């Protein structure tokens, strides 16, 4: 007799308002296997898993666990069906101890005393079984992210999960930590547990999974046995056509130094040093790329240069002028453009109409009104020019920005920053969550800007993007610049540097 699959999803459908996040999904995962799900940002991976975990309710469809149709009405139901999930954004109570977090929802009675004692024992057991060691009395917010993730896994295992879902677990991990995680996943599989691993890193999929499904725009477009497929095939399936992230560009002809950063040290809001004594220069007519795993200080570096975050020490010069501690408005006047990493929270004011977003940061400019006043007509005309030039759709400057798609929202930001003709442009994650057509368009504009003699600093966690655009590449790890390479450096070397392993 064939063993029933651990999970069967049949015809799962889910809409968030106008967004069709999951379209008629069918998926089968065998017991005792590691199943990968890949897909671009916004493809619907998290949504699908959250439905399986009972966090969201599907609009229609059926779920079978070990062959039994199961109605998962909330996470409690999922937990009792043996499902555990480690969310993309951790679901931990920061000011609780590890122990409190682990027993939350599984306290084993009205009073905590008995539950905590039992949990303490069982954590010991899990530590010896899987090598998952965490101090049960540590307060979560004081733990590094890698440890926090372990707490999440422990939470699931403590509840006796047979099926473990991990949503982009390696996004925040160093390669060493990721390897450790994969070893643990291997142990889990060997003990008969089923693992679903969500990621958009193809290498990870190839390294650890047994089977893999590809999601695109809310649909599962293919499922393969991992050893029957290749990275190239998966990539093509993921984006729906052959990926050619090669951008035509001439070799750079760098001129004067425009941006110079010297011994810069920056802390994040918790007071942790995120940028540690970093120095570099960017010249007119070149793109300097900064590669690194997310969370290694790139965001803080960009924010410091943009004037949003005050550095602890060190200096920033623009055209030889010391600008350390200047506010963003002042820096803009000196010719600094900034395409921020997070368009929803920084680059745009979503409830504003489009035209108002096309002046964000430049609103004090006399072009948009004399003295203290704003001139709506001038603003709208400027916005219309951007819309035409960047093919922003729909071409309506009065439409609420929230009603544009992600790609078009990003174009609004890019248009604003490039068209205000900066001398120096700093760019964070220019194509995150953007569709392939828009990616190409944005990449072309970035190269054109370089060719117009501007200095560009580009931060991206997508190594391919860095390699395609940059003239020189710096690699950041743990807040430090660990090395510089040229654009033709091979992926292997860069990957190792990003892991902090070799120079």
């Amino acid at each position, binding site marked *: 007799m064939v063993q029933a699959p651990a999970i069967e999803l049949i015809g799962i459908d889910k809409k968030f308002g106008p967004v069709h996040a999951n379209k008629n999904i069918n998926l089968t995962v065998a017991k005792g296997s590691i199943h990968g799900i890949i897909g671009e940002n916004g493809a619907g991976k998290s949504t699908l898993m959250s439905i399986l975990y009972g966090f969201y309710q599907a609009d229609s469809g059926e779920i079978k666990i070990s062959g039994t149709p199961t109605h998962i009405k909330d996470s409690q139901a999922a937990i009792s069906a043996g499902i555990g999930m480690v969310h993309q954004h951790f679901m931990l109570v920061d000011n609780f101890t590890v122990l409190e977090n682990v027993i939350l929802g599984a306290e084993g009675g009205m009073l905590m005393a008995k539950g905590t004692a039992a949990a303490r024992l069982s954590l010991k057991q899990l530590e010896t079984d899987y090598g998952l060691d965490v101090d049960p009395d540590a307060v979560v917010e004081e733990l590094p992210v890698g440890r926090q993730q372990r707490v999440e896994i422990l939470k699931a295992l403590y509840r006796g999960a047979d099926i473990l879902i991990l949503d982009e677990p390696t996004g925040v991990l160093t390669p060493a930590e990721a390897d450790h995680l994969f070893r643990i996943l291997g142990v889990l599989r060997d003990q008969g547990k089923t693992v679903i691993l969500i990621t958009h890193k193809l290498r990870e999929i190839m390294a650890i999974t047994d089977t893999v499904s590809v999601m695109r725009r809310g649909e599962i477009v293919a499922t393969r046995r991992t050893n029957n497929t290749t990275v190239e095939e998966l990539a093509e399936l993921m984006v729906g056509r052959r990926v050619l992230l090669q951008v035509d560009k001439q070799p750079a002809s760098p001129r004067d130094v425009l941006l110079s950063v010297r011994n810069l040290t920056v802390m994040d809001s918790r007071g942790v040093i995120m940028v540690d004594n970093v120095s570099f220069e960017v010249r007119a007519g070149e793109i300097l790329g900064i590669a690194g795993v997310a969370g290694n200080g790139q965001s803080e570096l960009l924010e410091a240069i943009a*004037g949003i975050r005050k550095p602890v020490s060190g200096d920033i010069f623009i055209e030889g002028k010391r600008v350390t501690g200047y506010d963003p408005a002042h820096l803009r006047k000196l010719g600094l453009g900034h395409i921020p990493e997070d368009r929803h929270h920084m680059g745009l004011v979503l409830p504003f109409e489009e035209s108002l977003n096309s002046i964000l940061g430049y609103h*004090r400019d006399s072009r948009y009104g004399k003295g203290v006043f704003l001139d709506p007509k001038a603003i709208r005309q400027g916005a219309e020019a951007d819309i035409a030039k960047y093919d922003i759709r729909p071409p309506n400057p009065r439409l609420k920005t929230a009603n544009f798609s992600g790609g078009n929202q990003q174009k609004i930001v890019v248009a604003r920053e490039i068209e205000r003709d900066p001398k120096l442009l700093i760019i964070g994650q220019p194509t995150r969550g953007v569709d392939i057509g828009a990616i190409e368009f944005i990449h072309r504009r970035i190269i054109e800007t370089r060719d117009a003699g501007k200095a560009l600093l580009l931060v991206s966690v997508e190594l391919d993007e860095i390699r395609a655009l940059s003239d020189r590449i710096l690699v950041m790890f743990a807040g430090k610049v660990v090395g510089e390479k040229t654009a033709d450096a091979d992926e292997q070397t860069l990957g190792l540097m990003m892991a902090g392993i070799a120079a």
Partner: protein
Amino acid sequence: MSTASIPLPNWITYGLLPLINLLLAFLISGLVVWIIGENPWEALVLMLQGALGRGEGIGFTLYYATNFIFTGLSVAVAYHAGLFNIGSEGQAYVGGLGAALVALALDHYCPWYVTMPFAIIGAALFGAAWALIPAWLQAKRGSHVVITTIMFNFIGSALMVYLLVHVLIVPGKMAPETRMFLEGGQLPKLDWLMALFGLKLGPAPFNVSFLIALVMCALVWVLIWRTKLGYEMRTLGISRTAASYAGISYVKIVMITMLISGGLAGMMALNVVMGSSQRLQVEFVGGAGFVGIAVSLMGRSHPLGIIVAGILFGILYQGGAELSFDMPNITRDMIVVIQGLVILFAGALEFMFRPALVRLYQKLS
């Protein structure tokens, strides 16, 4: 499927929805009236007659409306910058001190039109001053402005009582109030304006402050939608991170916004102190600062909406006073109930009917 993000046309969001909320508030108030054994319909008619029946009633209605427009603007300006100023009550109270000091100083020497500009400045300055510390605490120390403005309402009240009882009281008089202002410290009534419509104002204290309030509405509109400062306030009100990205100083905008808000609240004192009672009295604000919250919510923080909502509450206050005259069983406190219900339905429960309306709208269109 969630319906929260589906856009509705403006006439529903700004017209129909507030109307439904208002109707519901009235319906429940009617129920209360019925429970205490009076006829809600009769009560409504009496109220409307009292508020709009004669020139005098209209005069009182507009007099109250003037208060509420000032405090409504005060709440609204702060709201645009994402600040919830619950302190308009206290700011208006302290603003009264500014107006009174100017009136007491100048009424011997100047006619009203000379006193008035100074009084406006005095009232606004004192009101703004009372918003200063909560603003600073919010901007620099991150203390929630809601809590600190509540605290400052109480501190302001204690301060004003102290001043009125120990400093400003007329020696030998018992009531804690200043002396009556002379003509030069009194704002003239708008008899002529009423006469244009063929109405007699009678003794109602409807005065020049109303015109000042309308001017402030226009200025606030320009400020919010036509100036760079207003743009910065609105940006900050929606997204603090976007504001910091755009080089908008959080500290500066919070301070300026709260000062403007406090100043507008302070100006409300002109209407009562110089326009009506001609002296500074204990508790003269009488809750108008809190009504401003309801007015701003009903008026969706837009000056036009605030004028409409202000007049509506003026009708409630004047009509309510008349009603309690004619139906002694229904005390003036009924207005407070209605006010609370309006805030509840138009503010806290604003999303209650939205999903149903969205469905209906989608079906019909």
